[in-house]
């Protein structure tokens, strides 16, 4: 399959931008939070480009997430207008294997999700409550492989979406442990999707890429992600457990693409601070 060079360049540029953007904004002399996590759970997939049936199975994932305040060195920072703003980035690698209802076929999917968002926070220190709300840019790509299909085994989910992100967290203390319970939710607002026509094979897509990238919004693409996590800060380490749910559907006319997953999360958090000489200190 020949791949359009412009498409590859655009894809790579967007990916690099997403990955590098948080690095550019990294602030100094403030505490940063980084989480490494794994996910395991159930997955459901519907891809009417490949099959009309609903596939169900299991998924695993590996992810990295970081939370950072904005730099106070900028003009806005010095004016005190970034005091309540934070930014968050994440990169997830997901793999799922799902089966059709008669268990006669398997659909494999490998996905990379990269996201970056900024949010305003309201804090109630004494109660340990924090509420956050802000925009989030999500770049999702999943390649799906349908084992039995002839000449049309592959489908691709690719979308770049502006989302709304909201959350609430509650911090409390035990005898020797500090806890933070946090609920986060993301919902898409507007963006662009890659979507082939119903009758097109990917052989044809290489020749007719026009028309496969479409404007997306809540009228034709709905994404809802939720995450409930509990961070447990022990004297020498911080661990996270939680549950995540994601539902994503998009489509037009008589072709729908849907995906849902519910997974358990286990991860570890560490905090670090960058000093002006860029020494890296974990604590």
């Amino acid at each position, binding site marked *: 399959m020949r791949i359009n060079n412009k498409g590859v360049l655009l894809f790579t540029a967007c990916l690099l931008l997403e990955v590098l953007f948080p690095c550019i904004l990294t602030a100094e002399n403030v505490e940063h939070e980084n989480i490494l996590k794994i996910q395991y759970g159930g997955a*459901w997939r*519907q891809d*009417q480009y*490949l*099959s*009309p*049936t*609903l596939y169900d199975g299991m998924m695993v994932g590996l992810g990295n997430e970081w939370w950072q305040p904005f730099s106070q060195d900028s003009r806005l920072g010095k004016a005190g207008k970034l005091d309540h703003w934070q930014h968050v980035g994440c990169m997830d690698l997901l793999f799922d294997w799902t089966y*059709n*209802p*008669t*268990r*006669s*076929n398997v659909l494999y999917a490998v996905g990379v999700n990269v996201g970056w968002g900024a949010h305003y926070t*309201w804090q*109630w220190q004494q*109660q340990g*409550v924090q*509420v956050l*709300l802000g925009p989030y840019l999500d770049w999702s790509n999943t390649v799906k492989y*349908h084992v*039995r*299909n*002839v*000449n*049309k085994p592959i489908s691709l989910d690719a979308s770049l979406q502006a989302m709304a992100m*909201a959350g*609430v967290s509650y911090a409390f203390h035990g005898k020797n442990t500090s806890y933070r319970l946090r609920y986060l*939710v993301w*919902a898409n607002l507007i963006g662009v999707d890659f979507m082939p*026509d*119903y*009758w*097109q*094979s990917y*052989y*044809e897509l290489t*020749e*007719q890429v026009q028309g496969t990238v479409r404007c997306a919004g*809540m009228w034709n693409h*709905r994404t*809802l992600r939720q995450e409930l996590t509990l961070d447990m800060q022990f004297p020498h380490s911080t661990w996270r457990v939680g549950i995540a749910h994601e*539902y994503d*559907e998009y*489509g037009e006319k*008589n072709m*729908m693409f*849907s995906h*849902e997953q519910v997974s358990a999360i286990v991860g570890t958090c560490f905090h670090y601070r960058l000093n002006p000489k860029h020494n890296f200190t974990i604590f």
Partner: protein
Amino acid sequence: MRKSLTYSLLLLLLITACTHRFEGVEDNTPVGNMECLWQTLDQKYCFFDEKEVSWQSVHDAYLPSVQCIPTDDYLTLFDTLASMVNTLNDGHVNLYSSFDVSSCSTWYEGYATNFNWSAIKSYYIPSYRVAGGAYYAILPNDSIGYMYVPDFETPVSSNNMAYILRSFLPCRGLIVDVRNNGGGDLSYAYQLAATFFSDDQVIGYWQHKNGVGHDDFSSLEEQHLHKKDMPSSWFRPVVVLCNRHTYSAANFFVSMMRYSDYSAIIGGVSGGGGGMPLSYELPNGWLLRFSSVRMFDRDKQSIEGGITPNYLVDDDPQTPQDEIIEAAIQWITNYYKNDTSH
């Protein structure tokens, strides 16, 4: 604080209400499966005009009988749906299940067999070598190379071909036998055909469906044969043998070989299969394969119905020799008689 939390919860409820879980999943009933099959072909099958089939009439004819099939009677459903798709008279339209595969036989019924591999082995090539997907030997007493390609599932790579042609160095002609070759990977057919061309060229056309209507097709798109795919070359007379079971990628190979400067096609009318197949799953997990992309020869003629050879010759199964191979030997002999430059 309380107000913020209330607004957040309301927002979450609003977002959740906007999502619909797994719309449009087809129902796994006999009628649901039939409708899915019918609609898939109605929107994606590429030869309705050429086959002169009224697909709506087929739907109306089969629906009453499908409505009577009990949900657990999968054998009757399979046979009924197989019969329904066989009205298209297309070897590329099949239904695959865990217990059976349907196939259409009407496109080759009534044609001579025109091939007996056991007889060829005993009469012409008692010993032969195998290189990739090709069996090859020099025909005794004739200085003519014989190469049998039973399918295009296995490639005859450029490395294989280099050895095959080296063994045919003393030969004055070559017979490429693709009888009973049911096809396979089209790129292997391109690669083998490139042996008999000196440079890149347009060798055919494809036409994609670009809409759900029976007449919705893209413009013809050129298909190129690339010499770099097969650096080895054969520029002496070559005869391609075909029969009605020469199908799909092998049919396209025959189509390409008609444009070689040194070739002739001998045998029976090839089987056709000039549509690249795609597949789609039915709600019950069966797989439907169907022609979806139309292929044309370099003269923009459809090859779905098969290719008539330059010399129509039928094999007589009562005789030990193969009349089609004999005709090929004769053509190569005549080629040198008629063209003194060789």
